[in-house]
């Protein structure tokens, strides 16, 4: 096969852009949280400083090979699922492999990192970390169901499982799925609350009770790689939602606007809410979001 320089540039640029945007979003979220709490708050590039600092830690410890590989699993899942999502609509450089995979693949690819991290976390032998993993997996069973309901509704509505077809189906402003199938949108956004892991669904990483849960034994380069992967993964998820419900984006300006708009929902829900217990959050996801998802499917079916 011949070298396609545009695609190669895309392969190099996409993770960098995703990382920068994701990190900046994280900083902005910290700033917004501070403002809501009547504080001045850190600068938007605070998370970037944090990650550079973590990368420049001189020492690191691990409890064995699985913990050593855990962050590698995480970043593999993030970057791979990023490459299979069309970042920009019909642009060769920024919709890289999206024709070679589909939504079912993305569903499972997104779990890949969580599973790898859980294995790495398991080897630390830290009880807090294990409790965090148990809570995280249980909560995942909660929010995956409404998310899948929304996705199935969309896939059946548009008779495709590929994101590009879904994108091309919502070329007009009025064709966006948020208008075409609002119940799917609601179910998806409620599931996004659980995916993003802000309050009230932050029982997994609860710093006060679990000593930050799963990553409690990770420091230095491991934590740095985890946070990098987290930033990229946040951007990937937001782009996926923008593609699914808001008709994607033609250029990065629109993309940033849409993803930021989507991101603000879990953030603003998070800053004003206390924390759910695990079973409460699971039952929450099995009540209203699932009901909306079933409504979405019924709306498609009849």
């Amino acid at each position, binding site marked *: 096969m011949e070298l396609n320089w545009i695609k190669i540039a895309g392969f190099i640029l996409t993770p960098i852009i995703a990382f920068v945007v994701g990190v900046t979003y994280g900083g902005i979220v910290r700033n917004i949280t501070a403002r809501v709490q009547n504080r001045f708050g850190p600068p938007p590039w605070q998370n970037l400083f944090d990650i550079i600092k973590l990368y420049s830690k001189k020492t690191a410890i691990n409890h064995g090979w699985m913990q050593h590989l855990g962050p590698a699993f995480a970043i593999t899942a993030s970057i791979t699922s990023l490459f299979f999502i069309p970042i920009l609509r019909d642009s060769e450089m920024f919709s890289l492999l999206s024709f070679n995979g589909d939504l079912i693949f993305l569903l499972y690819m997104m779990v890949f990192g969580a*599973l790898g991290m859980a294995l790495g976390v398991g080897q630390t032998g830290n009880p807090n970390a*294990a409790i965090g993993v148990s809570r995280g997996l249980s909560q995942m069973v909660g929010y995956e169901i409404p998310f899948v309901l929304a996705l199935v509704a969309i896939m059946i509505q548009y008779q495709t499982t590929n994101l590009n077809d879904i994108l091309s189906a919502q070329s007009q402003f009025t064709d966006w799925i948020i208008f075409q199938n609002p119940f799917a949108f609601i179910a998806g956004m409620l599931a996004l609350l659980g995916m993003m892991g802000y309050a009230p669904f932050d029982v997994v990483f609860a710093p006060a009770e679990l000593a930050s849960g799963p990553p409690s034994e990770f420091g230095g380069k491991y934590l740095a*790689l985890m946070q990098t992967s987290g930033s990229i993964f946040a951007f990937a998820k937001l782009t996926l939602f923008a593609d699914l419900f808001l008709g994607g984006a033609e250029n990065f300006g629109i993309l940033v606007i849409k993803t930021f708009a989507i991101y603000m929902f879990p953030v603003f829900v998070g800053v004003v809410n206390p924390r759910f217990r*695990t079973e409460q959050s699971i039952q929450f996801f099995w009540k209203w979001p699932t009901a909306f998802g079933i409504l979405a499917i019924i709306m498609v079916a009849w």
Partner: protein
Amino acid sequence: MISITGILGITFGAALLTFLLHHLVPKLRNIVAILAIGATGYIAWQLPIDSYLLHFTVGSFDIVLGNSAYSQLFAILVAVLGLFALIYSHDFMAGKERLGYYYMNFLISLGGMYGIVYSQDLISLFFFWEIMTWSSFMLVIYCCKDAQKVGLKYFVFSAIGAYAILIALVLIYSSLGSVTFIKVFTGFSSMSFGVQLSSIILLLVGFGVKAAIMPLHVWAPAAYSRSPLAFTAVFSGALSKMGVFGIGIVLFKFTSESGYFSYVQTTLAWIGALTALLATLYAVFQTDARKLLAYSSVSQLGYIIVGLAVGTPMSITAALFLVILHGAFKAILFFATGAVYYRTGSTDMNEVTGLIRKMPFTFFSALLGIIAVSGVPPLGGFISKWLLYESLIENNNYFLIIVVFAASTAAFLYLYRFIFSFWLGQEEKEFVDVKEVPWTMKGPMVILALFTLVTGLYPGLLLAPISKAVAYLGVSGVSYETSVLFNSWGNKIDMNNVIAMITVVFVSAFIFLSIKNRKRTRYVTTKDIHTSGEIPKENENLTYKLDFYKPFERALGNLLKPSVDKIYNRIASNLEQAFDHLRYIYTGNGQTYAMYVVVFLVILILFSELIFGVKL
């Protein structure tokens, strides 16, 4: 020698030979068994397809044994799993008593499976079915003294299934005059509606017992957790697939014009989906690894039933793919459990912990195994899940896919618990001198693990025979390339890109982690964790294990309280009271179970006689 006679002769002959050799030269016993199954596997591989290689008449019954692509798929599954299990048994069963008994029954059950997959008429099918059932029953009660109760449960349900098949056979014979598959496939639709419906239902019940679909599954966890783990791999991987084999034939060869057929399919699909979901939820809360894997097998068979019952080309392909792959990864997981049992003497997930540094190969195989079960790319499990979901979506089974997906998401819970409890967590003091298992136990695990990897890379290799088998079932196959799969909407999944991406990113991240300040990256023991400055003592293990999924249990509430097992026990006790005054004929509990079976038989006969007017 390349014939079905050869296969059956070698297998049953080797069975007797091992039993004799056990008393004469025990060294040769294992070798003979392994060589025999290897040879039969080779023959099954070489056997020409669509050839009726054995045909004779007993009384007025034609006995036909023949080979087809569909049969060959299952035969090779049986051969490979049997071979690996026998190799594994060489060290795993070393030093146990009554090994002649063990090997003989093992080979007889393998021979029974061969006979089932090659039989082209219901008579020989029933015959070999009974052989398989009895020999596996012998192996279930092999382990220990208190296994009789468990074995009894298995026996009762197998008997129910066998009688159901027998009655269906009689019904069909009485109305067609022959039970060879050729006659039955062509003439089935000419039978009266009642006979069609009753025979199909009876056959589905009979095969569904072995396939452990939900109301008939209660024997499975007990039997799987009692039989020796080397055989449990075959039990769950191949023997339970015989039910799938039969269901496939019933659903797609016993075709008929009348419209009830789709209802049967839909009902079966929903039964399968609920089987998958409930069995998964039961598996999450098990503490014994064998029971966990047993419930996991039940749920995986539920997926297979869904795939078969939906009946689109893609779903059948998914089901057969999962048949093969479930054989592989469930064998890996049972072998790994056996390896842990072999070294630590326990399969209780609350006792054993922190073996990853002691048994790296076992951990690696088990890791690939659970990734394959969970369906995470790039392993083969993802391909089967992908095919299943795509087929369900195309077929507009909106809610079926939700149930199935909920099941496969909840599967992450028990899979993580399985691998976490045995290999991860803090290292226990009493397991410091545990060593890796010998190569005869390592080898099968690692080879099967690599097989799951290869099926993920090149699903086409496995889809080629499967599409032939699907074609035998009378449906056009699914379009695929060596590593690219398409659904009927034209969407594709290209495993080349997936593998390339995952490999590149993972390897680069791994290299980065490894070389970045390598000098000052230190390994610390699992005792050296953040515990607010306290140092855990030697004898205290801080691993969080008991009630690992308590929050999830609370979230489920009373969903899992009613158990099918209890219902059966209540029926049994009621029957015991009902037949209390017949105690001079039947006494004791076991006979009550037998009575239960007989009454079942009588009811079915009256049922068919009174309603459908079929003379028995």
